């Protein structure tokens, strides 16, 4: 909706950029209205890109079937991308967000030359290194040294360049001692560090990154975050696909929200992040993932986690102080609203949840335009892993009267030493040897807390 205006503005400034490129020595006067500083250079230009997948209604994947089936198999067309046009400027940290099935993975694969576009064209300035998944093409039978070389060449380096980068890669990954160890003997954490480090050390002008944050332990994560901030301020261009809105706000200059293969929002990262959340929360109750366009009586504007210092976080250390916050907006009069949240772990098990009503002393109802803010501490007993937050709102304190239900409003990761089960409960359990049962009695063993 915002896209056409923004896109045309970007196109007009790129025209100036184009002339600047073909005649770099000629002094060019730019309309001062448009640009006060040098016009931005375009790093990626996507114009009119379309992609349709033909999904066979009856799959024929053997020669035998093909030769014995006389009727031509039917197809169902899936428009993954529709007439997509946008530009990413040089040096930009550009976010692409969208729900599952919105076309963002398809777009990423077209940018990375993994899929061919059906129509339109993509132009880029400089070399691109795609990181669709960490550690693709790693060979378990080879040592880290050989893998760094192989992977470097895959990313477009020459063999000599790839070899000369070995030390830097290993140093960042903190794996210098394991250079001649075969990857099959690496732990998963070591693999992830090696892969992330390879990505950082590739000197491509454009990086394409698909959700690879939240890797490794806390100190390595901090290191990664530092690198992302560094890249953000460097002339390198990054296209970053994620579900994590706090990462978008933290790193991205601009972002784009894809929906049904088209651009739904385009612009400053925080605005796009809000559009994404709105899009997610607008779902009418019971509609699942289908987007019905209609708006619920109460919508969720934002939801977040904070640490003890009040900073927003997406990665939580096990057992650390954890604060929860959310804000809602009412669009109609709602009596007796109650707000619920629950956390599912990676196995889809609802680990815990809570429900709150408006504080006593004020009328138990909300009026159109009013905002409701939730905040407070949660006892953090979650075991390490990835969690998905669900949200719902009822009226009249009755779970039958669902006003809002969003199955996926916030993702977060708990890290730390893994214990048993899904929650870690404090315990004060003593183990004692019963008197009289044996000769040496009385030696109580204190249970570990």
């Amino acid at each position, binding site marked *: 909706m915002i896209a056409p205006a923004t896109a045309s503005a970007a196109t007009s400034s790129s025209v100036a950029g184009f002339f600047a490129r073909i005649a770099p020595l000629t002094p060019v006067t730019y309309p001062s209205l448009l640009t006060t500083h040098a016009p931005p250079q375009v790093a990626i230009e996507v114009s009119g890109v379309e992609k349709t997948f033909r999904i066979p209604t009856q799959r024929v994947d053997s020669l035998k079937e093909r030769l014995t089936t006389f009727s031509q198999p039917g197809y169902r067309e899936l428009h993954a991308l529709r007439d997509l046009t946008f530009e990413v400027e040089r040096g930009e940290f550009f976010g692409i967000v969208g729900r599952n099935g919105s076309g963002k993975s398809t777009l990423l694969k077209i940018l990375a*030359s*993994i*899929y061919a576009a059906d129509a339109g064209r993509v132009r*880029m300035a400089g070399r*691109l290194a*795609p990181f669709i998944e960490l550690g693709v093409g790693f060979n378990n039978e080879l040592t880290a040294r050989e893998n760094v070389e192989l992977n470097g060449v895959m990313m477009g380096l020459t063999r000599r360049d790839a070899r000369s980068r070995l030390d830097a890669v290993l140093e960042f990954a903190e794996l210098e001692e394991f250079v001649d160890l075969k990857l099959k003997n690496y732990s998963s954490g070591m693999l992830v560090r090696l892969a992330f480090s390879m990505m950082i050390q590739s000197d491509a002008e454009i990086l394409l990154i698909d959700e690879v944050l939240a890797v490794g332990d806390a100190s390595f994560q901090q290191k990664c975050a530092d690198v992302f901030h560094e890249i953000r301020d460097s002339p390198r261009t990054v296209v970053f696909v994620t579900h994590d809105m706090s990462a978008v706000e933290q790193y991205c200059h601009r972002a784009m929200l894809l929906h049904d293969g088209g651009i739904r929002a385009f612009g400053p990262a925080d605005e796009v992040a809000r559009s994404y959340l709105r899009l997610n929360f607008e779902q009418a109750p019971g509609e699942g993932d289908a987007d019905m366009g209609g708006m619920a009586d109460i919508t969720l504007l934002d939801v977040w986690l904070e640490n003890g210092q009040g900073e927003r976080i997406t990665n939580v250390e096990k057992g650390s102080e954890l604060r929860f916050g959310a804000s809602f907006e009412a669009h109609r009069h709602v009596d007796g609203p109650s707000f619920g949240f629950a956390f599912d772990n990676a196995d889809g098990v609802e680990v815990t949840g809570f429900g709150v009503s408006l504080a006593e002393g004020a009328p138990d109802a909300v009026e159109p335009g009013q905002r409701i803010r939730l905040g407070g501490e949660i006892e953090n007993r979650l075991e390490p892993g990835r969690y998905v937050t669900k949200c719902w709102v009822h009226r009249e304190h009755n779970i039958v009267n669902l006003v809002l239900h969003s199955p996926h409003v916030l993702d977060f990761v708990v890290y730390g030493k893994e214990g048993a089960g899904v929650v870690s409960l404090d315990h004060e359990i003593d183990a004692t040897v019963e008197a009289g049962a044996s000769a040496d009695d009385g030696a109580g063993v204190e249970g570990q807390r």
Partner: protein
Amino acid sequence: MSAEPANLELREVPGPSALGGGRHRFFELLWLMSVTEFKRTFFGTVLGYVWSLMRPLLLFAVLLVVFTRIIKIGGSTPHYEVLLLFNIVLFGLFQEGTGGAVASVVGQEGIVRKTQFPRLVIPLSVVLTALFTLGLNMIIVFVFMIAFGVTPMWTWLLFPVILLPFLVLTCALAMLLSALNVRFRDVAIIWIVIATALNYATPIIYPLSILENDPTLRHLLMANPLTPIFQQAHIWMIGSAETESVWAAAGGPLPLIVAAAIYVGVCVAGVWVFNREAPRIAEQL
């Protein structure tokens, strides 16, 4: 942005293709992947090279006993034992190259679907690995040739001349099969049968001369593009005065024309099919 690099041109992204990503990168990847695979098979295990020599040597020993003591298929062919070993080693390139390539693109799914990768590297690296193996095995063959008393000939130098068309055919089939197998997963199974049939339709365990009394079958065999290649290799490597020339064995131009037509057809089909399928391979996996 203090150190502003030179202006970069916007360049069109061509999308995935057989050779995508520049010729230099293509050859580097091809080389690196083949060497890696080669090293893995030969130097990864304790016995390494010895281990992988065991297979052709054991097969050779079995066939040698069967065909010189039991069936006596070799007839009066001079140096039949060495010819047998040479043929097995040479056909190994074809068998390993095509057999390994069939499932290679499907097997490297992770790379194909998640990186920008010249697709052609995948089947060709399998053939190149097989070529390295052939090179190593040829050392053994030459040792045996000397040991069995084959007199060195200047035509040994022509081995690359006969190897080249053989290699081209193997590459073309590797391309054709690996691309087709993405679409039709039973190609790999069908190919095992065809490859075995080709093994018998080519004078490998038997010399062509035992078909002296059956010219029809002999002419038919000459229509198999592998037969003239193997026959010529026989002549140049181990041949004696009695070894029949390709022309004489064909008994006329027709079988050779058919063989050439099949050869060219397979090559064209391999390149054409692979090129057509390459941009869409990632979607079909």
